[in-house]
């Protein structure tokens, strides 16, 4: 009798538990929307020529300066924009802008999704400066941007700049910090869909001293990686690079640096153990003499720090300069390279990156880049895009682009990452503390 009861209760219990577990499933009531936000490219200002490298002629594009958010197919793979900024729905591909003042300078930048906070370590606001900070508002509402400029004398009072809906504002750098030789700019989007681009163009009278786009970086970190600093030998003399640093916190930072190149890894003279005053833009000259044409700089600091390197370049006999900025670790993404033929430079202790290169004929090939400290791969002219995957930890990269007009530097960071946003559901719970 008792055994019957045991069997009965065991059978019922096990059955109910089994059935309920089978029926039970994790009820995920949340709905999500996944998309790559549109990217915004630097505006084409007066006298410049701007070409955007894309991978697909069907890419949707619109320009700022209109009251519409309507997009259209771009039609070609290298799109030249006459004025304003381009807002591109490029999906997972990051378009790259090649900006040229014909015969004077050239610069490159990746188009980016709207930002909340970005740093520009580079450019000057002194008498030679012809550069500008270009703020693009790609939204249909008015935007407000807080701009804080740091100079060799310290931080200047932040300025809030309003940018009209779906337009851009060009602010000459001398207006932001008149007379400052070395500047760093921090922009914060207080409201609106904002992107910022800095063009560092210099001249002395009618003589051009070159120019470049200063690529933006993320918030300060304790370990900086600048993967690609071009080293163009002038006969047998050392090239005078300038390391520009900013410690935006409240405490001075003690730094150490390491140069990694195919010639070896060594510490540059006069940097290790140096204390960098906070809130001031500090420049440290680096005279480098080495055979290899590019090197990477790794900086460690006990405080969050920002940095970039200004390198003089010569392109077809004309003097130019390039700003090599810090980049975070490389992520998987695809960069449009149509018509650019960049040289990809990777740095890291143990480099491993799989490149998938798509050519104009639509064919793809995979290249595994492996090495230590620094590795380079030059893409051919026919390469329309390159995808980065199977990346070893601690590897970062940048692309160097050379043309008749000058040298350009593009950090290898995705302009737009897949964003998963929750579709809101009605729930009265939101009104309960």
């Amino acid at each position, binding site marked *: 009798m008792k055994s019957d009861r045991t069997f009965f209760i065991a059978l019922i219990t096990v059955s109910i538990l089994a059935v309920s577990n089978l029926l*039970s499933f994790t009820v995920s009531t949340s709905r999500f929307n996944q998309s790559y936000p549109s990217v915004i490219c630097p505006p084409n200002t007066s006298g410049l020529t701007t070409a955007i490298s894309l991978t697909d002629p069907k890419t949707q594009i619109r320009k700022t300066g209109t009251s519409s958010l309507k997009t259209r197919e771009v039609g070609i793979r290298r799109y030249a924009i006459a004025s304003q900024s381009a807002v591109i729905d490029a999906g997972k591909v990051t378009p790259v802008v090649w900006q040229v003042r014909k015969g004077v300078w050239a610069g490159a930048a990746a188009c980016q999704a709207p930002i909340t906070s970005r740093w520009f370590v580079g450019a000057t606001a002194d008498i030679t400066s012809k550069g500008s900070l270009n703020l693009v508002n790609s*939204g249909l509402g008015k935007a407000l941007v807080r701009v804080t400029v740091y100079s060799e004398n310290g931080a200047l009072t932040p300025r809030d700049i309003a940018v009209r809906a779906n337009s851009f504002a060009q602010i000459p750098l001398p207006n932001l910090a008149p007379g400052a030789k070395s500047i760093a700019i921090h922009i914060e989007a207080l409201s609106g869909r904002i992107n910022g681009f800095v063009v560092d163009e210099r001249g002395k009278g009618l003589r051009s001293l070159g120019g470049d786009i200063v690529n933006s970086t993320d918030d300060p970190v304790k370990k900086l990686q600048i993967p690609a600093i071009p080293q163009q030998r002038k006969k047998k003399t050392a090239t005078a690079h300038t390391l520009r640093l900013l410690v935006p916190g409240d405490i001075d930072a003690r730094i150490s640096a390491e140069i990694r190149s195919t010639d070896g890894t060594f510490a540059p003279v006069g940097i290790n153990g140096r204390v960098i005053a906070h809130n001031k833009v500090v420049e440290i000259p680096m005279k480098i003499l080495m055979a290899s044409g590019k090197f990477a700089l790794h900086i460690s600091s006990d405080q969050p720090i920002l940095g970039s390197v200004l390198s003089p370049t010569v392109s077809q006999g004309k003097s130019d300069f390039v700003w090599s900025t810090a980049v975070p670790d490389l992520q998987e993404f695809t960069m449009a390279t149509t018509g650019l033929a960049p040289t990809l430079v990777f740095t890291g202790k143990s480099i491993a990156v799989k490149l998938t290169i798509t050519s104009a004929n639509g064919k793809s090939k995979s290249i595994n880049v492996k090495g230590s400290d620094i590795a380079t791969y030059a893409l051919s002219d026919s390469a329309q895009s390159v995808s980065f995957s199977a990346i070893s930890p601690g590897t970062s990269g940048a692309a160097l682009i050379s043309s008749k007009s000058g040298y350009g530097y593009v950090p290898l960071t995705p302009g737009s990452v897949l964003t998963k946003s929750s579709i*809101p*559901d009605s729930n009265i719970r939101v*009104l*309960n503390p």
Partner: protein
Amino acid sequence: MSAPRITALLVVHDGATWLPEVVASLASQSVRPNQVFAIDTGSLDSSVKLLKGARIPVASIDRESGFGAAIAHGISQLPALIKDSDEWIWILHDDCVLHPQALESLLAAIADRPSVVMAGPKLLGWHDRTHLIELGISIATNGARWTGLEPSEYDQGQHDGVKEVLSVSTAGALIRRDVFEELGGFDQNLELFRDDVDFGWRVRVAGHSVIAVSDAIGYHAQASATERRSVDVHGAFLHRPLLLDRRNAAYVLLANSSAWSLPGLVIQLFTGALLRAIGYLFAKLPGYASDEILAIGSLIIHPAELLSARKARKKLRLISPGVVKAFIPSRTSQIRASFSRFAATLRTAILPDSQSYDSPIVSDLEINEDEDLLAPISRTPWKSVFYRPLVIAATVAAVVSLAWARNRFGSLAGGALAESPASFRDLIKLYISSWHDVGMGSGQSTPVWVLVIGLASLLTFGNVSLFITLFFLAAPFILLLSAHAYLRKFTDNSWLSAGASFLYAFSPVAISSINSGRLGVLVLLALLPFLIRQFHQWPEIDRWSWRSIFAHGLFLWFLFAFNPIVLLMLIGGIALSIVADFKKAQKNHTDPLFRVRLVRRITLLGIPFLLAAPSSFGILIHPSRVLREIGLSVPGGGPNLAFLANPGGPGALPWWCISPVVAILLLAYFSTTAARKFAQPGIVFLLCGTLLSVAVTPGNGTPLSTQISVAAFISIATLFSLTSGVVMFDKIRSRLEQSHIDFRHVSVAVILAVTLIYSATSLSWLISAGANSPLQTGGKNVLPAYLSIETSAKSLVLRPYINNGEQTLSYYISRGRDVTLGEPDVAPTDTAVISQAVEGLIDNTGVSSSKVLATYGIKYVFLKNPIIEEVVQTIDGLGGFTRTSATKAGIVWKVSELTGRLILTDYAGTVSIIENKGITAIIPRPGTLTLTETFSNGWKIYQEGFAAARIENSDGLPTFEITSAGEVTIFHDGRQRRAWISFFVISLITVTVLALPAGRRKREISERELA
């Protein structure tokens, strides 16, 4: 001075029961009256024969004659009063025995008090002769007979002495004959009852004194008042003593009181009669209720009688009527006495006196005071209180609660519990209102639990927040006490019952309910031990009285109001029982027993269903609503936790705190038959809960489906488990000691180990992580203060949450304030168009979102911190929204389109916003007026007395055609809601009356109980 002449007048009416002793007491008086004369008012028993046997002269008069008429007749039979003679009448009742020294004591008292014309004895009970009935009487302003004594006051001589009083009872009263005749004797309009107070009053205002003499003792049976004999006097309509007493009380007050106090007295008499009548109705004594009303009515319809009485009294009044004021109890005294009586009743109900007197003391001789003195006094050291298991359990609970509830000292909100409104009036208003300003507006009926909480908050002077806080803080103790009151009946071992009660109070379901703010489950847990007793006899429901059926129906309705899932249990239980009954009746549906049980079971189901209307009808249309909990929806934990008797979800104990509930159930199932009786239903409830825990249903105010909580099932399983445990372990120690080690020892050890581990782990968790439960105090308002200013403006509130590690976003429409208690239960889920517009805000497709939001009167969009940057950028970039602020609270955008509660589109197509003041608004020109509230047939606009034509526009909003400029009145017609409330009140009163114990007429109370 010569001795006074005493004439004893004995009035007899069917008094054979008491008369022999009365006559004997007359004969044994130490001072004999000079003359004894009896007046019989048509007795039908052997009274006259008895009197004649005792050689007492008897005069017989009509059976319908009143007491006053009988005395008047007696006096008329006496020789005429000799002028200046000291002659007294000693009035005797046939149901009042006088102590042998009674007359002597009365005479002694009046001897040196020449102003005294009326003196009465101390009256004690007939059956219980220590029961002090009267020592002088008065009348309260509500007509009650006032003795100034406590109910059933024990006579210890505490009131002894000679006291000036308003009057004394006519039983044993000694009255000076000349004054009696001068004042016209007893008022003949007062045939019975209150003639004594009336006469005393008249004596007083005539300038004489009345005293009560405690040395003179009488034992009064109060045969007429206690309905031991019929009242046959002429004025006693339908022979109803209560009617006569109330009528006479009012007569005495209105005839004797000063003119200026009459209005107040009339109001008080009316109100008192009405309230008492309601009380009698609840006690199912409609006869007494009608007596109360008829008494006042019969007096009012004969004003001439009252006027002549007042005129007669005015003639004989020699001094100010204020002289009696000192003897009329003040209203304060009356209120104090009422409270005292109520407290005594309550005390008796809660703490019944364990001493029972099987036989009443009928004589002083039976009281052996020496015995009292010789009996050793039993003293219990006060410290022993602290060694009581229940006190120890409560102390441990207090210590744990102190740490556990450290974040709950203050206004509570979180989990399923919304914020408390400022006052109980808000809850009452929410219950009564036909339209609720929640989200886009809702016309849903507010569930009755909101009204219950509102009324219960009166205990904290209307402060709902305080009431809720105290309830949640006291919840473990309430559960401890309620479980103990139930479990102690199953064992003599107080440690066992206290331990099991402690486990109940700190069971996973109790902890989860407190932590997640589940008010409904806590109410269920607290009341379950009281309900479950009766359900032990569930199969034999035919043995339940109808009163019990109604009472339990009411109880079930109350639980259903707080836990809709109770209805599901009830339906399931009743369906299974009907099938079982049908089988027992050998599938014969005409079987009388089957029918009796069927009717009772269906009644038990019908009562909660009826009382919960119209919400219960909504369950018929949407059966899934029965699975919802009250308040905000909180998900359950799924089947595996449910099987461990843990409801799971936010605030629940982690899985590794495994309670002994399941282990006890399973062991008890294989234990004794008595334990199995409780284990079986416990297992059924546990398994049903486990199976049901996989169900998902949308919560209140959201279309989102979440896993349901089966806390109610687990609560019942927990109580059954603990009951079976108590039954199983009762006297187990002696059984274990007497047997060799076998499975019993092992099972006890297992249960003890599981219990100890559970106690250690759960209590540790409670005082550490448990304090950070969803239900907490100090939560800041969701909406920033600046959005609360525009109370008429709607704001769309977006709020991010982390769900299963993912950031999710929810929204709701606010009316300038957070959600308060009860509102989630009536909140609308969503409006499809608004949901689409909000979706567009997030996925960057909402170019027209601002226009849509404006259409529905939504003026602001508020993204609460922690903000999601992508969302901010999207809204910023969409256009149609202007950022107005970005603070720590979040970011606010103003919708650029013109919007408000009332949108007027005139015939030229111009749109303007109309501001309303309360329910009125001025319309500047004719046009179409759109009210940005969800369409409901109740919405009406009146202009110049005419209703404006109304349609539901394509957006689902009510739109009215305004034909001319001017003032309009906008309101939601609440007639339907009021009708439902009336239906509810009538149903509730009816069921309550049927459920309450019936009162008994005095004649139905036994002599023994009277003693």
